[in-house]
């Protein structure tokens, strides 16, 4: 299905909902993996907003992407409880292992690396989220194993 049709379907689901812009943007990103620039005018018109307002919302929230990400998203928790258990070293290791910085995607398109501030798993830190799965007590070795699994799945 062309993406315009998919965006229209999302709009149809949420246009009548009070304050429905966030659920709408979540729905678009869920289906397309990101929110294309070209969808902004359509969304703005349907929701009776200016393009600037829609752009403003997309750019305000960390979750929304305007470019496609990798097949998988790896989030490393940067917050204090994880810092107390060595997440600073884990972050550095992840960046080195993947040869990318936060917000970037690996050359093979497999993995996008992102920071996250707390996954609510703070009694068993450091925490890493891979797509919708949270992993506890992650050290460099377990992270390497998790990343290797992801690469295998993506190939």
């Amino acid at each position, binding site marked *: 299905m062309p993406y315009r049709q998919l965006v229209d379907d999302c709009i149809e689901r949420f246009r009548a909902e009070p304050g429905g*812009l*966030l659920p709408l943007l979540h729905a678009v990103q869920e289906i397309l993996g990101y929110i294309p620039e070209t969808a902004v005018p359509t969304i703005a018109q349907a929701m009776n907003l200016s393009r600037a*307002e829609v752009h403003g*919302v997309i750019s305000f929230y960390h979750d929304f992407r305007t470019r496609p990400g990798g097949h998988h998203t790896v989030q490393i928790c940067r917050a*204090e409880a994880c810092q107390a258990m060595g997440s600073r070293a884990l972050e550095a290791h992840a960046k080195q292992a993947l040869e990318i910085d936060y917000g970037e995607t690996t050359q093979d398109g497999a993995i996008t690396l992102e920071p996250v501030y707390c996954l609510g798993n703070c009694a068993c830190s450091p*925490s890493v989220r891979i797509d919708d799965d949270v992993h506890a007590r992650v050290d460099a070795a377990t992270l390497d194993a998790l990343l290797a699994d992801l690469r295998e799945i993506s190939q």
Partner: protein
Amino acid sequence: MSLRVFVPGDTTAVALGADKVAQALEQEAAAKGLEIELVRNGSRGAFWLEPMVEIEEQGERFAYGPVTVADVASLLDKRQQHPLSLGAAETLPWFSNQTRMTFARAGLGDPLCLDHYLSLHGFDGLDRALHLPPEDIVDEITRSGLRGRGGAAFPTGIKWKTVLETPAQQKYIVCNADEGDSGTFADRLLMESDPYQLIEGMTIAALAVGATEGYIYLRSEYPKAWDVLHKAIAKAEAAGYLGEGICDTDKSFHLHLRMGAGAYICGEETSLLESLEGRRGMVRVKPPLPAIEGLFGKPTVVNNVLTLAAVSTVMAEGAETYASQGSGRSLGTLTVQLAGNIARGGLVEVPYGLPLRQLVEEFGGGTHSGRPVRAIQVGGPLGAYLPEAQWDTALDYEAFGAISAMLGHGGVVVFDDTVDMAQQARFAMEFCAVESCGKCTPCRIGSVRGVEVIDKIIARESTEQQITLLRELGDTMEQGSLCAMGGLTPNPVRSALDHFSEDFG
């Protein structure tokens, strides 16, 4: 006879391998010709023991943990003779020394099973509220002494009274489930382990103030809680506890679940309301209070998950029972989350007033690394770092306020002696710079300047002068910021400077 086997399905248990353990239990039981009934319960909150498997034999439940896939075969054979055997969970001092009120049901059964909830006094509070006039419900909550559990500790009854007495065609109940503070997971645990309690509390709030619509604003970092709440709301609706004509009365309450989008500031109530309305999560100027002009400009109750959950306990057991716990003006129970570098981390519910040291040493068992504790941050990223001299402070709002610290949402993050407090101070400013909504200058610019100044201190560039500058910057942020984000960010920075000055050159 079949054995009932409980394997927690909450985020932390699963992050530690509970799904694999559950799968192995089923396979191993089948291979042994043993009939088992697998229940995916919520967690009881003893995360240091997760995955904590429980096996029910002759009506008694015995706990084992932490269980790995490799332990499963021998566990089914040896059961109470197994080295991982803990006895009945309730008899462990870690549990028996707690006073579980809000978390009394957590981890006992399938969080989505309505019959299970009903069998443990679920909906007793709602049942009572349905037969009381709104004023009496508000009065009951006021007398219980319940204060907001999100961090600000505002008396719940007073907030509700304002909404009740503000005339409007439409009023709203909003649950703040944007639990963004590092070191906190109580909201998540409650939503994943006992979601009907939150639904019940929100419905009682609706009856108390005359609201017919409600929203739960849940952070996107909690995918499991989303899944559980989504199903729980549908089941509660189907069973007549939500929607039109609640429990065959003429009362109605429609509950909607909304997902945040990764912005810490949306835990601030006015920013949350902006976000619910479909806008950038920019903080609003108060007044008007949300209780008078809140969601879509209508009178709105905004309460934290634990506050709303506690409401069902207060209504079920009465204000006096609830207020009999606690100390001074901090009544009821406090849910502390032991996190960070801690040996026995998890959720501890105790009456207010316990000294911090006792909590960290007796429940927490010291650090996970085995090294000495150096600093404890209480109350999330905006809370102060406490040095050993302050660990005898009692856990209540006023005692913490008196030492320029705060309890906040009850997160307790422990650091061992390898921590670099200058880096922690820098992170406080960096976090504020990343998460500031940008509306007010002291927070938006101050946090960026704060990082720069601390970098100079770390690089030993005219340290004394920079420290003076940093303190002045803290004063400006505290006095000039619009909300608690910019206003409280100086707390962790100042406490690091005051109590750990040796780390600043």
